[in-house]
């Protein structure tokens, strides 16, 4: 990830970011001035009127109406000002240009998948063209999630049974974090995707490639899906034990279930475990951790199994 951010804000890579940053720094510097006034006044008064003798008995001071009115009026003007600017900026953030390129985003526990108009579907990677407004139409398969791209200064909750949307226009090619920012359970912290901003030409090329699933050999497609669907977050392919069992040497091995039964890990076993992982759980692992992946297509399941067989 590039780093041209400031001390407070990350790099800014969308059309709305500079405006948000400007407002952030306006409130920031105003706050610094107010804090210095309060703290300065406090320190001065504490020193100036420190108690010199136990018998000190100061006369009560008459209140100043002018002072009181001024510290009501000045802050009121200031907050109404930042309210207005914030409100204008918010309208820009919420209303997408009508010519925006549309991508369907689906959040699930714990990953993202993005569907493109030409049928391409990728997980945990969002590819977008630079200098072109992009609108994500979003929904969730299970609980609340929230799509947050700090470099673009955009965030929107993703809900089950309802569409929400977010739009941005990237201004810099590069890779950026996409976080889930609404708490969603065990792997909330790992529900991170990468935003790839390409030039229009590179994007077109990538998009054509991504839609070519039909031509990709099964194991290769499986490898891609294994990453995109977030499988690698729990299942390693190098023999280390994660939240779920490793895939290394899994195919053809004997697996002891929680109920004691021993099953051979053949194609049907793997298929069951992908589509309905909660039904049978291998001894030593927790039930209910892995979500069912029934939404994968037949070819995608075949591809995953082909990939696992090779490990």
């Amino acid at each position, binding site marked *: 990830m590039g780093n041209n951010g400031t001390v407070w804000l990350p790099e800014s890579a969308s059309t709305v970011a500079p405006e948000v940053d400007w407002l952030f720094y306006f409130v920031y510097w105003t706050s610094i001035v107010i804090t210095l006034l309060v703290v300065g006044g406090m320190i001065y008064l504490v020193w100036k009127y420190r108690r010199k003798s136990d018998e000190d008995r100061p006369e009560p*001071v008459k209140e100043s109406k002018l002072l009181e009115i001024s510290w009501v009026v000045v802050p009121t003007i200031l907050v109404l000002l930042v309210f207005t600017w914030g409100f204008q900026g918010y309208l820009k953030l919420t209303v997408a240009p009508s010519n925006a390129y549309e991508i369907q985003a689906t959040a699930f526990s714990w990953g993202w998948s993005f569907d493109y108009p030409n049928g391409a579907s990728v997980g945990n990677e969002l590819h977008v063209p630079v200098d072109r407004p992009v609108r994500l139409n979003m929904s969730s398969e299970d609980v609340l999630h929230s799509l947050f791209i700090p470099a673009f200064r955009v965030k929107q909750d993703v809900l089950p049974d*309802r569409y*929400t949307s977010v739009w941005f226009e990237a201004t810099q090619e590069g890779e950026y974090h996409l976080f889930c*920012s609404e708490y969603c359970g065990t792997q909330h912290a790992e529900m991170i995707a990468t935003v790839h901003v390409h030039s229009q030409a590179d994007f077109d090329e990538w998009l054509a490639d991504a839609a070519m699933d039909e031509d990709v050999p099964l194991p290769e497609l499986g490898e891609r899906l294994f990453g995109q669907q977030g499988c690698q977050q729990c299942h390693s392919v190098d023999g280390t034990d994660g939240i779920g069992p490793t895939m290394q040497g899994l195919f053809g091995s004997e697996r002891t279930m929680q109920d004691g039964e021993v099953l051979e890990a053949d194609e049907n076993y793997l298929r069951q475990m992908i589509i309905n992982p909660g039904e049978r759980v291998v001894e030593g692992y927790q039930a209910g951790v892995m979500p069912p992946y029934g939404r994968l297509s037949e070819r995608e399941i075949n591809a995953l199994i082909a990939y696992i067989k090779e490990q």
Partner: protein
Amino acid sequence: MDSSKETQSGAAPETEHQEPHNYLNHAKTIKSWLLTLDHKRIGVLYAVTLAVVFLIAGLLAMAVRVELFVPGETIMDNDTYNQTFTMHGIMMVFLFIVPSIPAILGNFVLPLHLGAKDVAFPRLNLASWYVYMTGGALVVTALLVGQVDTGWTFYTPYSSSGDMAILYMTMAIFIAGFSSIFTGLNFIVTIHKMRAPGLTWNRLPLFVWSIYATSIVMVLATPVIGITMILLFMERLLQIGIFDPALGGDPILFQHFFWFYSHPAVYIMILPAFGIISELMTTFSRQRIFGYKAIALSSVAIALLGFLVWGHHMFVSGQSAISSIVFSLITYLIGIPSGIKIFNWVATMYKGSIWLQTPMLYALSFLFLFTIGGLTGIMVGVLSVDVHLHDTYFVVSHFHYVMMGGTVIALLGGMHYWWPKITGKMYNETLGKIAAGLIFIGFNATFFPQLILGAQGMPRRYATYVEEFTFLHQVSTVSSFILAAGLFLVLGYMMHSMFFGRKASKNPWGGATLEWTMTTSPPDPHNFTRTPIITRGPYDFHLADEVFGPRHTGDGAGDGATEPATPAEREASR
């Protein structure tokens, strides 16, 4: 009448040699404590209970900080981490900060401030503690029967699908809520009906005004969280679709219900702190409060406006843009009265006589920390900026600046201030100042880096994080140990003073409110030996001849003096 009963059941008071009769020594059995109807003893019961809760929830926070020292798994796995921050939040919010100041200091000080013998309904007061304990027991049960990892916000549908232990937790919050309602109701009636002769509304100490405003919110808002929890409970148990989309419910409805309580609850937590700060600033400046009416009425204004801003927690939730805009505007209106208070407190010191004892150090810390808490609140209220900052560490830090930097610091200041009155003992002033310094430095060094983390995009409730956030997380974790050291130091010298502390005089700080001028330290079981008659305002130090002696004779002073102080006594109290 109740206390005479206690005297019979308890140890005979005459066994105390020369110790004057007071609320702590007139009966000493455990039963006399558990069945007490004395507001002072109930305050102490709450103090002990809440100290335990704060300790546990604080240790959970330390576990969270340690886990975040490096990315990846440090001391616990994701699920354990999620349960840890959930328990930290639930215990701190529902079991500690909401009851804290009203239940401990409100109970102890309010009737003393009013010149009353007790609160209006002493039995209801005791009941509130038992109800609270029942809620606490259910929280423990929830921990034993399963896992709660929903965060303290219980957002649906995640909470509708989790472990059954969530049901125990929602029931615990439902029940603990009644303890708030009882306390609030009791205080409202007490303030209306039990003021001493001459104690007009304009002569009420500002602590009383703040407790009054808080009580209104407690009584009006708490039922909503109760109802919400019951709805969540019924949805889960009877499968009625209310919040869960799988059953045809609406998850955003839950957020509306939840914040309709939880935003006003923020004012339940912070308003009493305002009250304490007003007391500390005046007593330790020996000056009238600047803008009494502005402070008193702004508390009530905040309490009422506080009901109209809940939607600012939901700018990116999917609620309509119009709602967000309206909520943002009202949020700013509520920022103004809070700002006025800060300016008023600073102005109170003008031409005062400022005495930097430990409670005053906490009051000054509060002014600084609450200013940051308030201004970061303005930042997250800006619609377009909030879109970026929402659900990040910026928000985490903002509310810790308000809740801990505000409420907990004020509570610590108040505990030090009233400690001589509550226990009859003085704490060690030097250690007190050191601890106040450690807490101030530790707090800022823990939470200021989190503001930067959040603005840089670090989402909250993450068990692990991307590498670029490591440095700031480490600063925060290391500093949290300084903060913890300060708090443990307070615990240590407070416990020490309870047994070995120097005896406190009646009015060690030279306060001009009734608890200092009219009661002994610790007070009599019945508070006052005669009904106080009020002839001046709470901060009219220039009229408080009963504290300082007649004007200009110089034969009396507030500092550690039993009046009238002899020079030798004054020397000894330094």
